[in-house]
């Protein structure tokens, strides 16, 4: 399994103008509407959004497991990797047949950890064999080598008695242990990209922290790129280098983690940050974004967030905002960032909160 080293700043994956729609009995749902995102070597990208915002659909396309009623209408997902001889190869995952992606890339190059560890493990197979399976299947190792490697992997993901766990079945393990096993399986073939789709929502807070720390540790050690999908901004703050906030199938704000958290520009991000319960403040009411997400079955005119946005401008109802460059890696799709737009101040409560966060973090400005 000789791997060829990549440079730190090399682009591993680049998504350009991706559009995906689903045919349903009630009409066509435009789930992804022009997503553009890059993933660099060794970097962690977090995609944040509510359910139905299209974050899972984006990564499912990369894995070739898009549901059968979904079609990629346009756009490209360029993935670059080295083949066995060290030749740089480029694949366009949006054009490749799904079967070919699964055969050539899944497991070997791109691996995924799903939300619920119970449904992603085979209940009739011992843990050890499930970890050995991908290695043998992809022809990376013989049975003996695979067994040895499986024990190493179990140790790596923080299971205290690998020998014992190797022979156990999934139902004998606790939720946190199961998720560790799933991560071990994902890492079995040394992938370049690890996709974690809400890896900790099914787990308790105490175990969640441990799992996130473990993934981080492994990532640094192996220099792999990780894509997190989550709706929990606390998790994002802990793990991500780069954040993309999705709403109704579009990325509305993206940037370096510090840019987005300490200087959010999109009203939706404001709403998300203020609706996080804060342990330190004593305010009686929690801020809530009014209304609910739009129905993507209907054509979205203008900014999809406008009806829920107290800062909406007139143009928001007519025209979709482009991505504005607001400095650094920070891009925002909101008309408020247009030079002609009126100056809108952050909500008072969020301002206080960010000031406090900056103070804690030791940033002065």
């Amino acid at each position: 399994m000789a791997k060829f080293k990549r440079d730190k700043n090399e682009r591993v994956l680049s998504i350009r103008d991706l559009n995906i729609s689903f045919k349903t009995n009630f009409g066509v749902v435009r789930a992804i509407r022009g997503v553009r995102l890059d993933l660099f070597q060794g970097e962690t990208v977090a995609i944040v959004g509510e359910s139905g915002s299209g974050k899972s659909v984006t990564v499912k396309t990369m894995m070739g497991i898009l549901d059968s009623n979904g079609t990629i209408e346009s756009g490209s997902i360029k993935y670059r990797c080295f083949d066995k001889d060290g030749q740089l190869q480029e694949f366009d995952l949006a054009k490749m047949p799904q079967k070919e992606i699964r055969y050539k890339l899944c497991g070997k190059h791109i691996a995924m950890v799903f939300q619920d560890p119970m449904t992603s493990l085979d209940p009739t197979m011992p843990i050890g064999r499930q970890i050995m399976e991908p290695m043998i299947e992809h022809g990376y190792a013989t049975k003996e080598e695979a067994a040895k490697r499986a024990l190493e992997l179990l140790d790596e993901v923080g299971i205290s008695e690998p020998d014992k766990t190797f022979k156990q079945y999934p139902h004998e393990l606790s939720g946190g242990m199961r998720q560790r096993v799933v991560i071990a399986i994902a890492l079995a073939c040394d992938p370049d990209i690890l996709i974690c789709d809400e890896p900790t929502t099914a787990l308790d807070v105490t175990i969640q922290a441990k799992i996130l720390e473990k993934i981080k540790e492994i990532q640094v050690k192996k220099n792999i790129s990780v894509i997190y999908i989550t709706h929990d901004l606390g998790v994002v703050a802990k793990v991500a280098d780069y954040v993309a906030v999705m709403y109704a199938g579009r990325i509305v704000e993206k940037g370096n983690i510090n840019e987005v958290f300490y200087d959010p520009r999109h009203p939706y991000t404001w709403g998300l940050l203020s609706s996080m319960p804060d342990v330190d403040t004593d305010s009686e009411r929690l801020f809530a974004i009014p209304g609910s997400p739009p129905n993507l079955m209907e054509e979205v005119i203008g900014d999809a967030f406008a009806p829920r946005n107290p800062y909406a401008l007139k143009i928001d109802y007519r025209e979709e905002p482009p991505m504005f460059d607001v400095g650094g890696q920070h891009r925002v799709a909101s008309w408020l960032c247009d030079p002609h737009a009126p100056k809108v101040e952050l909500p008072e409560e969020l301002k206080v909160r960010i000031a406090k966060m900056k103070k804690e973090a030791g940033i002065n400005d």
Partner: protein
Amino acid sequence: MTETRKPLLHVEDLKQYFRISRRQVTKAVDGISFDIYEGETYGLVGESGSGKSTTGRAIIRLYDPTGGKIIFDGHDISGRLNKEDASYLRTNMAMIFQDPMACLNPRKKVKEIIAEGLEIHHLCNSQEEIDEKVNNILDKVGLSREQATRFPHQFSGGQRQRVGIARALVMNPKLVIADECISALDVSIQAQVVNLMKDLQDELGTTYLFIAHDLSMVKYISDRIGVMHLGHIVETGTTDEIFENPIHPYTKSLLSAIPHPNPIVEKKRIALTYNKDELGVDYTAGHEHVLSETHKVLATDEEFEKWMKGEI
């Protein structure tokens, strides 16, 4: 303060065991005691498997408790229920469940779902009265009257949870048990539902038993908190006491596990671990230590001394 207020619910040494096989018994709830006063919100937190949901279900008598006493507003509702107590319990205590899709009958209209309790207990004399009550509660939870004739699948998750709340509140119960009622919802919707529950409490004076695993959300809604672990309440106190001055190492580990949306600080922070066996903590050996009138910790004498000095 405590003497003047009358407990609405008094739970004493509640035990709920489940027999798995002839030899094996799971002690899901193992002798817990607490009081809930009228008009307040009591938050019960703990990891999965700590017995917090079982406690809620045993109190509303979805299970038959193995032992202990539950006094609800002067009525003893533990043991065999007589007809009078049963009907008092069923009309004055209600529950909101975790998964709003699974707890609503998919074949019934929302109006019928909400009115079901009223009909079963014969609380209304005429159809008009039922309609009026249903419409009132729909207004209160922020659903429109036209939506009452729809089916549960036509709603979004947040709206469905509102239906669940409406169903629980339509009979004007004294105590509502909310079992993880926001965990299945999105972050922005969670805030809406929590605010709604708070508003309704101010308006109707309902008492809540709020069960959750997310300590940060519990902080917003609760007046007092009980921390559960493996069937025992290890620490209980007012929200401030728990957050400002946690004594039990398990409470500390729960507090440290809450993720903060502050990237620079959060990246450096490592959550505390709590392992009961490593520390040698035996819940059955400990007894309640009283710090203040409201703040109590379950510990043995030695442990208590050690923890008070800040050691773990």
